[in-house]
């Protein structure tokens, strides 16, 4: 018949009452797709009933996948009322075939997907409930952290100074270049755009007011907070998450250490010190960039720029910006740690929660910034 080392094949013919199937060649994974199609064609085209024989004498190779196909043909024919017998099973494959026949298989059905609208609504509902629940958990976590803060205030000896300085270095010192650069460039962009628009009224000089007030009140701190959320908030989640996967958090608890005190507080405190400092640095860098642009584009002298800046901004503007920094820092750090502690088991959840930590903390920073704006406008600052 066909050449012995050739690919697998399957033929069927009817001899009066007998349905004769002949299988040969390699019945292995490499030819499985073809054999799968052929065997389905044979079994679906086999109406009636009676005796069926599957002749395997010409098989040259058989693996578990091939054995499964043989078994499936057998089952399919039996389901159609045939009496099936296997013939000419090569002795070296007998064990494998009986092994596969013995297995009780539960092949899952093709999962049914509900229609698009239903899925959309279901997803929306699940999302809303999950968001609400998360907000509550986050609030209770904030409360726990506040209590831990209180405990440390009463017993300052329990503050972990080594950890605090380590995180200060990570979140503050190492962030200086990127925060400075971003603020500097933003200053340039704002000065340029402002001068362009204000020139139409002949009011270019107010570019300096625009620059000073917006950078001090809003942009300096807000941009810093966003950069820090992306840089340090995500790092907190990933660090604590990896510890969680490693069971290090459980180890801490069993030796009587409170993760809140050991992990969360030093990070939160470090960030609350770091963010105002970084924000101040960003304000300086932004003003420097804006000033540079103003001097180049508006033909102001540096001295004129400084005089105009001094008359435009008051200390209140500066403090309105700075007072927000520790609040933002507290939220970024706590969201980062909270998501890290929520990690369960898998590497995938570390990645997912790290993303979530950045999104949630930036969102909260902007919401709280808006609330501050409303508050300050009530106070008339």
């Amino acid at each position, binding site marked *: 018949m066909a050449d012995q080392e050739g690919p697998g094949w399957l033929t069927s013919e009817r001899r009066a009452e007998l349905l004769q199937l002949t299988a040969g060649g390699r019945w292995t*994974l490499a030819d499985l*797709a073809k054999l799968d199609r052929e065997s389905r064609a044979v079994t679906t085209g086999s109406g009636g009933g009676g005796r069926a024989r599957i002749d395997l004498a010409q098989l040259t190779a058989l693996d*578990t996948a091939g054995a499964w196909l043989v078994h499936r043909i057998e089952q399919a024919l039996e389901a159609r009322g045939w009496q099936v017998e296997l013939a000419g099973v090569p002795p070296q494959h007998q064990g494998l075939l009986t092994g596969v026949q013995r297995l*009780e298989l*539960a*092949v*899952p059905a*093709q999962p049914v997907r509900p229609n698009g609208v239903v899925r959309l609504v279901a997803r929306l509902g699940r999302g809303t409930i999950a968001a609400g629940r998360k907000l509550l958990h986050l609030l209770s976590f904030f409360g726990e952290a506040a209590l831990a803060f209180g405990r440390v205030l009463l017993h300052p000896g329990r503050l972990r100074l080594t950890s605090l300085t380590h995180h200060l270095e990570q979140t503050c010192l190492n962030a200086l270049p990127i925060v400075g650069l971003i603020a500097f460039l933003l200053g340039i962009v704002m000065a340029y755009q402002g001068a362009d628009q204000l020139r139409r009224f002949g009011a270019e000089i107010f570019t300096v007011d625009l620059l000073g007030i917006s950078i001090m009140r809003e942009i300096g701190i807000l941009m810093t907070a966003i950069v820090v959320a992306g840089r340090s908030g995500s790092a907190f989640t990933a660090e604590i998450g990896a510890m969680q996967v490693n069971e290090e958090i459980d180890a801490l608890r069993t030796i009587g250490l409170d993760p809140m005190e050991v992990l969360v507080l030093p990070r939160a405190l470090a960030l609350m010190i770091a963010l105002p400092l970084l924000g101040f640095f960003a304000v300086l860098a932004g003003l420097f960039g804006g000033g540079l642009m103003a001097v180049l584009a508006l033909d102001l002298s540096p001295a004129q720029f400084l005089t105009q800046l001094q008359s435009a901004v008051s200390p209140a503007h500066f403090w309105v910006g700075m007072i927000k920094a520790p609040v933002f820092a507290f939220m970024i750090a706590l969201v980062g740690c909270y998501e890290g502690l929520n990690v369960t088991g*898998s*590497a995938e959840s570390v990645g997912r929660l790290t993303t979530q930590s950045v999104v949630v903390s930036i969102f909260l920073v902007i919401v709280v910034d808006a609330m501050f704006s409303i508050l300050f406008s009530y106070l008339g600052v």
Partner: protein
Amino acid sequence: MVTPAIRIEGLRTEFGPQVVHAELDLEVRQGEVLGIVGGSGTGKSVLLREILGLMRPAAGRIEVLGRDLAELDDGERRRLQGRQGVLFQQGALFSSLTVAENVQAPLRERERLSEALLRELAALKLALVGLPPDAGAKFPAQISGGMKKRAGLARALALDPEILFLDEPTAGLDPIGAAAFDRLIRELQQSLGLTVVMVTHDLDSLQAICDRVAALVDKRAMVGSLAELRAAEHPWLQAYFGGVRGRAALAAEG
């Protein structure tokens, strides 16, 4: 003469100044179960990684199924990888996929099969390693350590390999689970005609299923049956087989 499943000649492995293997020779016969034992830091797992081509030795020759690893091009390497399956120590299941999808992953990557057939084959492999039918839909984080190993084994068997590598297959299993896993490996090895190479610390496993044992001592491999190695003079082997745990495990032999 049949080509050995694996032949290693003059293997040398070093990490900086630290030499792990020197002039190591090892031959794995087709259809046997070879256990690799050795103290911590003797390079058992490193040896496994070198055979799998995950790491290059400093010198020496490794042949798997008659092919020299150093001379393979990418296509040949891929084909060779399809002929070997690996069970990593922790199962190394992909955590973002369900157990059934984990088993389907190598099939999906290499063959063009219909979804229905993929589901059938996944169910077949899971049944083959003795997992309950509902395990397929679960994620790795939702199943126990023993089930993870079985699922990892199902994935290793997905492509019907000729050689199966096991890294500490029974580590972390309770004695009953470990014995059952040993039996499973033996049964599969016999019914599928596999060559099995297993790194293990478990004397019970050595005793139960290994045809031969390779002990990594003095940077080389001493190969023999369990009885031969027990009779050897080497102090590490004496300590290993002669210790309390060793004697208890071997006492069963009678």
